[in-house]
């Protein structure tokens, strides 16, 4: 099953809509609730990142019998130092993002904790791609 969702820059009102839709799909497919939670927490953090830090982007989800692979691809500005961004507490979030309860520098670390495979690629001026895989068994 292939699903696609578009996310828009600073669209906080709808932040989480794609994660919510994928959560419902996984529940309908009777995926173990603990695994659904891991997928959804990671995806939600990535979705909020694309809205809070990037000029919007796309979410692609591919679900098969034993795993889900989600790719969040944004349109920039890109992360200059991925290693720095992966450390807990490091954040470049705006005051607006912090007012929404995010921007504590927990997003990427939270994603890493919840997925079986994580691949973050970024080019400054081009964009960031966050690919994550969660296995169902």
């Amino acid at each position, binding site marked *: 099953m292939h699903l696609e969702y578009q996310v828009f820059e600073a669209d906080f009102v709808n932040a989480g809509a794609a994660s919510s839709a994928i959560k419902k799909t996984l529940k309908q497919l009777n995926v173990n609730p603990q695994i659904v939670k891991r997928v959804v927490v990671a995806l939600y953090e990535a979705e909020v990142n694309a809205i809070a830090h990037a000029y919007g982007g796309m979410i692609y989800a591919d679900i098969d019998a034993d795993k889900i692979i989600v790719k969040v691809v944004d349109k920039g500005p890109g992360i200059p130092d991925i290693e720095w961004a992966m450390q807990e507490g490091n954040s470049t979030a705006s005051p607006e993002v912090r007012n929404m309860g*995010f921007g504590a520098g*927990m997003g990427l670390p939270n994603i890493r904790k919840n997925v079986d495979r994580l691949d973050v690629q970024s080019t400054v001026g081009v964009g960031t791609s966050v690919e994550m895989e969660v296995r169902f068994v």
Partner: protein
Amino acid sequence: MTLKEIAEVLEAKVLCGHDRLNEEHESAFASDLMSDVLTLGDYNPVILTGLCNMQTIRTCEMGNLDIIVLVRRKKASEEMIEEAEDEGMVVMESDFSMFKACGLLYQGGMQPIF
């Protein structure tokens, strides 16, 4: 504590989830940071927060957390209540500070999760 007892102790107004007030819960977690709320693994503690916007509801939905106490006189919007109702959540509002709300629940026997 039952959710009804929690509402009484916090002098809280229950906004939705009235049918669940007899449920008993033993743990609570307090934070204004939604990323912290998403680190709780398989627990479903009562969430106390002063963050009051759609992301409060959405984050709890993503984390399978379905009991929210808004503290510090924060008032939920109609939109938040609607979304919470759709998700079958219990949401209440207390005028107490986070510190006071946590203290009263701890005194009432609620446990931290770590």
